[in-house]
């Protein structure tokens, strides 16, 4: 057993309001400089949608992640020793700037300096690469809130295995539903980016599992951009080196939450330590597709188990880290309550960012049965728009299986295709609402609430704890971060605020392009 600690995350999707504050916080600190303008280490996508870069989930296009071969071994789909070195002079699976968007600004000065004239002056868009005027074809979050649906949402790769009728149902005007999917680097246990880097510049930090690109070793072979299935390594076209989310490690080291999480308006983000057995990585990553999620979650160890504690100590894990692991909100969501799932586990990188799947599309469904359907709550029967956001909870379990968003769609995202797994999580979330409704509104009987909880194997205490952690968590309950020991932290010797606009990777030389 080789126990290591890993900074892991949970994003609670029902709480995300799509405000992009996280994105802006990140951009302001890390990527507000030449060559990085197009990068959004944190981005918030509307689902259904094609995302950023366009259709990133379609690995037939981007060739990211690992593949399991008939031999039972896994190999990188679009990179690796053979493919990577043979394709080094030209990488056939490299996305280009147009797959993201060409960064632009406006010539605002023209507005001020324009001479007096009959027509209003305009600020023309100019490319941030060439400086020349451009026609903007694409921008960040072009598809926010389902705008441009035929071009974007309809082309969501997760719709591929849905029937035409199911797709139609999702896109009926006035009944469309969507949710937000905030994404950052998953700081994977089996990172494809690390494995793909020919120069060995990308590494996982032993202490906390953060995955970083060493800027002084990166040689611009640009294989990581292909290999990361989440497209969370970015090529800086100006410096000629790749960059990625660094989980704000200078902040983590002093026990502060990363900027995106700290600023999160919906308070959807949780960060904490997970202990895992590093000896199992390869075996788990090579599991059969249907066992992947289960095996990954089994891989995380119980931080209260004396044997685990002893082994962790023997492996040099600090007491403060162990304490943090015992209070980890991630452990609760993923292992105790079992309501959080990794995104696209089938990419086999063993991501450490888990999502609590959203309920909204389920809730909105119930009124599909119009009129006097016995399934409708008596209150809802009085509404004109019966199909809209019916939050009455009678018989609501029954609707999960035929929710507005076909379960298959959600399972493609969070269940590696396993609809049962997803239904199980959604039912749990629903049961907690029934239970809370019984307590706060009182229009649901105690028996019904107890039956709902029993149905999903939750006790009232657990339901209460989940409710508290979801709705009322304090800052230090959401973020349980063991600060690095002062004498061990890497960044404390440096004044990070002085190096804004530099590469910002603990590497404080201005990012000059090579000659």
């Amino acid at each position, binding site marked *: 057993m080789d126990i290591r600690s890993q900074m892991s995350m949970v994003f609670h999707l029902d709480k995300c309001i799509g405000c992009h504050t996280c994105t802006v916080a990140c951009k302001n600190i890390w990527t507000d400089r030449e060559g990085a303008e197009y990068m959004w280490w944190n981005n918030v996508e509307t689902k259904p949608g094609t995302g950023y870069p366009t259709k990133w989930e379609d690995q037939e296009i981007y060739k990211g992640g690992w593949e399991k071969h008939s031999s039972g071994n896994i190999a990188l789909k679009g990179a690796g020793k053979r493919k990577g070195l043979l394709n080094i002079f030209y990488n056939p699976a490299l996305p280009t700037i147009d797959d993201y968007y060409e960064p632009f600004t406006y010539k605002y000065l023209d507005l001020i300096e324009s001479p007096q004239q009959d027509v209003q002056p305009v600020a023309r868009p100019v490319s941030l690469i060439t400086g020349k005027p451009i026609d903007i074809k694409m921008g960040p979050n072009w598809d926010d809130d389902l705008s441009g649906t035929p071009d974007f949402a309809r082309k969501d790769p997760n719709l591929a295995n849905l029937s035409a009728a199911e797709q139609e149902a999702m896109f009926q005007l006035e009944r469309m539903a969507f949710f937000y999917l905030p994404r950052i680097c998953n700081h994977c246990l089996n990172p494809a980016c690390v*494995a793909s*880097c020919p120069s060995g510049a990308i590494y996982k*930090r032993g202490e906390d599992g953060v995955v970083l690109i060493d800027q002084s070793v990166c040689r611009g072979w640009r294989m990581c951009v292909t290999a990361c299935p989440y497209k969370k390594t970015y090529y800086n076209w100006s410096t*000629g080196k790749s960059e990625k989310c660094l989980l704000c490690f200078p902040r983590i080291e002093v026990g502060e939450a990363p900027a995106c999480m700290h600023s999160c308006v919906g308070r959807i983000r949780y960060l904490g330590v997970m202990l895992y057995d590093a000896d199992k990585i390869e075996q788990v990553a090579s599991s059969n597709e249907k066992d992947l999620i289960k095996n990954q979650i089994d891989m995380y160890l119980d931080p209260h188990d004396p044997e685990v504690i002893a082994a962790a100590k023997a492996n*040099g894990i600090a007491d403060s880290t162990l304490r943090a692991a015992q209070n980890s909100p991630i452990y609760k969501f993923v292992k105790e309550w079992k309501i959080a799932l990794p995104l696209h586990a089938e990419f086999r990188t063993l991501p450490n960012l888990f999502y609590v799947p959203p309920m909204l599309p389920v809730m909105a469904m119930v009124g599909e049965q119009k009129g006097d359907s016995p399934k409708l709550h008596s209150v809802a029967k009085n509404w004109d728009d019966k199909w809209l956001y019916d939050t009455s909870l009678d018989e609501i379990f029954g609707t999960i299986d035929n929710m507005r968003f076909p379960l298959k769609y959600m399972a493609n995202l969070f269940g590696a295709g396993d609809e049962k797994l997803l239904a199980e999580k959604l039912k749990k979330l629903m049961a907690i609402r029934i239970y809370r409704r019984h307590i706060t509104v009182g229009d649901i009987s105690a028996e019904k609430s107890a039956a709902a909880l029993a149905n999903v194997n939750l006790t009232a205490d657990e339901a209460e704890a989940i409710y508290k952690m979801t709705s009322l968590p304090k800052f230090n309950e959401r973020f349980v971060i063991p600060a690095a020991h002062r004498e061990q932290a890497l960044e404390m010797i440096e004044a990070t605020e002085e190096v804004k606009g530099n590469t910002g990777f603990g590497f404080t030389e201005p990012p000059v392009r*090579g000659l």
Partner: protein
Amino acid sequence: MDILLFGAFPYVAVVVFFIGTIWRYQTGFKYSSLSSQFLETKKLFLSSVPFHVGILVILTGHFIGFLFPSWFTSAGGGGIISFETITLAFGLSAIAGLIFLMIRRFQNERIMTVTTKMDILIEFVLLVQFGLGIWIAIELRWGSQWYAAVMVPYLRSIFTLDPNISAVSAMPVAVQLHVIGAFLFILLIPFTRLVHFLVAPFHYITRPYQIVRWYWDKKAIRDTNTPWTTTRPKHL
């Protein structure tokens, strides 16, 4: 003049090369292939691949000739002809690739914004050098013979710090220019993106896929018998 060009210049080039590459390596950030594929990908395949395959084979050829000249001087006529035809093909591939690369670079606005003066300079130096090389290969046959017989002793004399320039001085101008071009190329390496081939990632072949870096020897830190002064971070 000849002494300056063939006796002194090589030393200047080599010394500058060593000092320059080390200096640049220590300032760390600037070693990169500076790939421009992210800005333009369609034309890169037909330019970068023939260019690199060609130049790598040709460079290796020059090296082998330098190290084992007897392989060539003793080779029979038929062998030499087919050998030279093949290398000429690679040479043509390199120059064609280079021309495509230059067209691609100069035609594309995005790539022009990431083009430095040194990129332009080095591509022209390479173009002239490749052109001379091909001209020599066609006009002054059979190069692999006289390269091994005449040029290699000269190059070796430079290495042994006893430059014997009589052989080069007697060579046709094209060859002389090719020699100067070669040392100019070496001189320019540290100041251009050419440093990227010095860090070609061959170590990837043998390394394990996953890399974990520990800043601290954690086990030593936890061990009460270890004095804290010995548990320094590994990267400092």
